[in-house]
């Protein structure tokens, strides 16, 4: 019987055990395990009646009870051993010191510094202003909308862009929802209600009742190229994505340069400072080289199954300048195409005069793309709206 486990014996009426156990739960919570009050109570019950002279049964039981995901499952042993074998919760709590409480390990182990493009986000948390904004999209700010995004540096203008993109995303969603509703109306009979109503007519179904399927929102997955060649636009698109995440009920966002990063959680953070901090952690390699094919491969392998459903449109924002092999990109695009309902490729370079998609990567990806469009300013983004509404 080792020292730590000896404490578990219920000689002191279990008070010591309870205290130690609560400490363990705290260590788990510090490491991002979602342990609630009821789990704590049940866990204590289990610990009290466990065969206390053996540590393993206790481990098995608590692992079952207190883990909630694969990540928890794999990290449980580490926390358990440190806490019960060592002499206190402090060491256990330090396992993930400095890491975020995010449930995606890819983010947690990213080490890095603030990227140059992130600085521009600082101090900005523009809220939509009152009722005026509801009415229209891009048209209310024509002169601004027609400016190529490269030329905008003024903070005030940036805030207005932000405002516009948020509104745009909101309008896309609204259009989609309304369409669904009208098309689906009255397609299926609600038999339960028909029977109920027919009773008063002696069983003749005089009044029919229909079931309206609640429309499911479109899910938008945005994959943004944040490499050096895109650096003029990435701040703008990060802001656009933030608008998308806020306004679409289901949306996910990824950023890639030389590797792929899931940024939805960081962008959803309402506290601007925290959001910046989290993004800074991920920004290593920001504005560096591009590996589109490899990044898409990472997406297909690790995320595609969980973020893409039957109503998902994938929006890739990139100029198509790829330092990887075009064959990889082509194969990964084909794979993505099999899952996603639609693939939209936004390329800011189309806005430049005389640009043709000659970048090797772009040529390899094009056959798999449903919509290849320009996205160098707000007007071009607004032009996408009818297409998205038709998905």
């Amino acid at each position, binding site marked *: 019987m080792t020292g730590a486990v000896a404490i578990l014996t219920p000689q002191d009426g279990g008070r010591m055990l309870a205290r130690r156990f609560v400490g363990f739960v705290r260590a788990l919570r510090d490491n991002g395990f*979602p*342990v*609630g009050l*009821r*789990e704590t109570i*049940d866990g204590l*019950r*289990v610990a009290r009646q466990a065969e206390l002279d053996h540590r*393993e*049964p206790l481990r*098995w*039981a608590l*692992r*079952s*009870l207190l*883990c*909630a*995901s*694969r990540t*928890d*499952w*794999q990290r449980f042993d580490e926390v358990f051993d440190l806490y019960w074998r060592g002499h206190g919760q402090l060491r256990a709590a330090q396992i993930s010191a400095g890491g975020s409480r995010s449930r995606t390990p890819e983010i947690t182990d990213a080490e890095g510094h603030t990227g140059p493009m992130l600085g521009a986000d600082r101090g900005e948390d523009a809220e939509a202003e009152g009722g005026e904004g509801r009415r229209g999209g891009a048209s209310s700010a024509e002169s601004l909308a027609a400016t190529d995004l490269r030329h905008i540096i003024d903070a005030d203008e940036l805030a207005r862009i932000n405002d516009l993109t948020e509104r745009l995303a909101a309008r896309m969603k609204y259009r989609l929802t309304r369409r669904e509703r009208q098309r689906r109306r009255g397609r299926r009979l609600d*038999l*339960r209600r*028909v*029977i109920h109503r*027919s*009773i*008063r007519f*002696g*069983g003749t*179904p005089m009044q029919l009742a229909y079931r309206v399927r609640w429309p*499911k929102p479109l899910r938008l997955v945005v994959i943004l190229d944040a490499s050096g060649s895109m650096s003029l636009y990435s701040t703008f698109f990060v802001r656009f994505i933030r608008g998308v995440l806020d306004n679409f009920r289901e949306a996910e966002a990824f950023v890639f340069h030389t590797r792929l990063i899931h940024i939805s959680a960081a962008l959803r953070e309402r506290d601007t400072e925290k959001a910046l901090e989290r993004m800074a952690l991920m920004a290593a390699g920001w504005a560096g080289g591009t590996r589109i094919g490899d990044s898409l491969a990472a997406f297909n392998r690790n995320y595609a*199954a*969980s973020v893409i*459903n*039957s109503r998902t449109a994938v929006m890739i924002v990139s100029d198509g300048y790829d330092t990887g092999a075009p064959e990889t990109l082509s194969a990964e695009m084909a794979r993505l195409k099999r899952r996603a309902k639609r693939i939209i490729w936004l390329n800011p370079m189309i806005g430049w005069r005389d640009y043709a998609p000659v970048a090797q990567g772009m040529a390899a990806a094009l056959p798999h793309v449903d919509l290849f469009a320009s996205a160098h300013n707000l007007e071009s983004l607004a032009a996408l709206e009818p297409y998205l509404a038709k998905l």
Partner: protein
Amino acid sequence: MTLDREAVLKRLGAVGYVADPQLATAVVLMQQLARPLLIEGEAGVGKTEVAKALAAVFETPLIRLQCYEGLDANAAVYEWDYQRQLLAIKIWESEKRSAEEKERHIFDEDFLLKRPLLKAISMEKPPVLLVDEIDRADEEFEAYLLEVLSDFQISIPELGTVTATAIPYVVLTSNGTRELSDALRRRCLYHYVDLPSEAKELRIVAARLPDIESALAAQVVRFVQALRKEDLRKKPGVAETLDWAAALMGLGVKDLRDEPEALHESLMCLLKTQEDQAAVPIEVVERLAGKAG
């Protein structure tokens, strides 16, 4: 009847499921805490098998609810037998009874079709309820399920509230097509099933195919374990290993190294996409078979 860990382990072994003490502990906790068990793991590692084995262990029926997108309460909980209700209304038309009485008559339990969830909570002896691939169902259904799994009661507006006579053993499986809600995850006991180690897979093959020669079984398992290390889109699971071993027995193969061509053709038991089949040409098969022997 509460089984302890050793008893669960022994009984799981007896019904042909090779379990570890971790899983057995989870089963004990299911009985003690009346919490559902959420099982995750890659496709083909035998998640559904756990529920089937549990039904055998507890000697109780298995009720299965297969989830899919758009699954609603009518398909999962209960439905009225509309045709019979309409007929009953017609038959009772000539009877001189009040409307209330007629209504009571057609909303009698006789006209109620019990779907898996309702069936599971209204049985005398607690059954095993398998909610398969919960990640395929919509969020709304997941929330509803969570409510049922906490209270173990279902309300039917026309009939009243049905409270569980016995609390079923609930097993949920998920493939990770969608992130499940934290509330559901917290509510459940958790078990992650990995692809088995070589020794464990060998025990599984021996338990499931008692007639197989041990030399062939060892070769098959080593071959599959090596194949999983290749760059494949869909790694063969335990079910595939068993299929393939059975197929080889049926073909009369005694040694994997004997007939590389027959071996290559039988690989369709293991590799289920054209891409993966192309990725494992006959040379690779020979190399793997050589190593496995």
